[in-house]
């Protein structure tokens, strides 16, 4: 079950990555940094909430609000940086997001310091549940349910709403969508902000379970990277399945042969890239 919890978080970050890649064709290395940003903001928000007399049982409220609110930095990043490089070579786009990784890492260190911070004992505040013979913190179940709900919500958004149709049209053929009257700038801002929010929310939700560390972003991005490669770049279903594969394999490997943990995942990534570069559900061609 630990694996599924991890998968739920991974899915959120990877979904943000997929959304941005699908529409803007930018592989956003900074999505891990957004995740770290969400985590730190979550810790601060929960700390503020409880120190001002908020009931500990409601700690998820400030957590989620903070996670979503800090996602609005996506607007700044998109308007301030990314919009200059849409017509550039993808190397430059990749490097720009790498620049973001560097900046955000130190911004986080400047704001919150280098020492890990955590929310303290709130993790088990909702008690534990017995499930399939294992003891699982109820908080984990809530996060898994929330992640599932978000997955369904994303599916609904993409396939059933007008905005979803625009997103898919833009992902398919940007020029055609523009020619048909879609204001692409506005779509890009919204898509990127949504992608950022998924990442920051993922970071905020993970935080009661682990401490926030300044390296958490650059560590998570390689996992999210594995998820999207296994699932297929640009595919939501791919993010979902990929996150489950990576999350569960990781927890299995840890319990069976710890040395293999991440090694196994990268080997799978390489295998997928070699035999099926589109990934399990991808549509992008190699």
């Amino acid at each position, binding site marked *: 079950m630990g694996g599924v919890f991890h998968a739920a978080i991974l899915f959120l970050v990877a979904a943000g990555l997929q959304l941005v890649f699908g529409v803007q064709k930018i592989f956003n290395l900074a999505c891990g940094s957004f995740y770290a940003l969400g985590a730190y903001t979550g810790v601060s928000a929960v700390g503020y909430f409880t120190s001002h007399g908020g009931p500990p049982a409601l700690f998820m409220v400030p957590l989620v609000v903070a996670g979503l609110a800090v996602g609005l930095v996506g607007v700044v990043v998109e308007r301030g940086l990314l919009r200059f490089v849409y017509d550039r*070579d993808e190397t*430059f786009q990749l*490097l*720009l997001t790498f620049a973001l*990784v560097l*900046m955000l890492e*130190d911004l986080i260190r400047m704001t919150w310091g280098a020492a890990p911070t955590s929310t303290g004992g709130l993790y088990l505040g909702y008690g534990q549940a017995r499930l399939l013979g294992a003891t699982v913190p109820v908080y984990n179940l809530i996060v898994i349910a929330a992640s599932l709900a978000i997955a369904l919500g994303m599916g609904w958004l993409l396939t059933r709403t007008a905005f979803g149709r625009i997103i898919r049209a833009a992902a398919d053929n940007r020029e055609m969508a523009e020619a048909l009257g879609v204001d692409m700038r506005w779509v890009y801002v919204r898509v990127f902000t949504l992608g950022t929010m998924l990442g920051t929310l993922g970071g905020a939700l993970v935080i009661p379970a682990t401490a926030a560390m300044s390296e958490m972003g650059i560590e998570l991005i390689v996992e999210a990277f594995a998820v999207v490669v296994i699932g297929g770049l640009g595919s939501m279903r791919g993010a979902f399945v990929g996150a489950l594969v990576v999350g569960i394999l990781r927890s299995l490997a840890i319990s069976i042969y710890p040395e293999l943990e991440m090694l196994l995942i990268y080997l799978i990534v*390489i295998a997928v*890239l070699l035999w099926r570069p589109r990934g399990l559900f991808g549509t992008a061609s*190699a």
Partner: protein
Amino acid sequence: MRTPVGLAVIGVTVLALPLVAAPYYVTLMLPFMAYGVVLLGFNLLFGYTGLVSFGHALFIGVGAYTGAVLTTKFGVRHMELILLAAALAAAVVAAPVGALCVRYVKIYFGMLTLAFGMVFYTFLLKFYRLTGGDEGMRMLRPHLLGHEWTGFSKTAYLIGPYYYFSLAVLALATLVMWRIVGSPFGLCLKTIRDNPLKAESLGVSVPRHRWYAFMISAVYAAVGGALLATPTGNVDPTLAYWTHSGNIVFMVLLGGFSSFFGPILGAFAFIFLQDTVMSVFPYWRLIFGAVLALIVIVAPGGLMGLFTRRPPVEAARP
């Protein structure tokens, strides 16, 4: 820089540097020269062949660990042998890895190299008995040209014989690379970068040339990695981490990938800028991130691009 006079001035300056500059700045030149070698090779792949590796730190790691393993476990202390072994090890690793990677281009090539880099990183991190895990391994002071240099203190050794040794390696690496990019082989690579279809139809085997370029750049990275290990005296897995690969790409871009000497300038600017920024402000990544963003957006030609008057649009397509 383009004139022989400029090269001569730079040559005399670096030769005389240990005699005039403070030892601290001389020791800063050592990582610069090591990265100079790495970047020369990297740019054969990036600037000349048009492939961006996001896992190049793998080969720096291979070179550095070769040095550490040879000096601590096998008692091999001759730097010439270490460099040779590092180059050999890199070629052995790069042959299969490169053969697989060059089947793809653009973002897929980048992702594949990133994944291979992370495989090596986790291997270094997790197999404690072989690699020392996250503590890494010691790199003992190597002998140069058969001499032990026992009378020298650590600093005297580094700013004296080791400085000139590194310089010689960098000069040799530059000379060899200059010959490579000017050869028919180098021209083939440029053709492949600009128009792979045309190259193929002219009878140039595109995957084979990409593979050769990959191996050459891996060998350069390993030689640079081995050079890098001596001044630090210690090697650890972060050498192979993906952010290190990112820094490599950063350095090349900083200097300018579309010119031969750009990467060397980039390594120089990166090392000394990092030192300057860190001495006044602990959060150097913030500044560097901003610098990188600025380069990507306004000056894709890098520092060299500022000197040569080339339209930035053209330079923006590697």
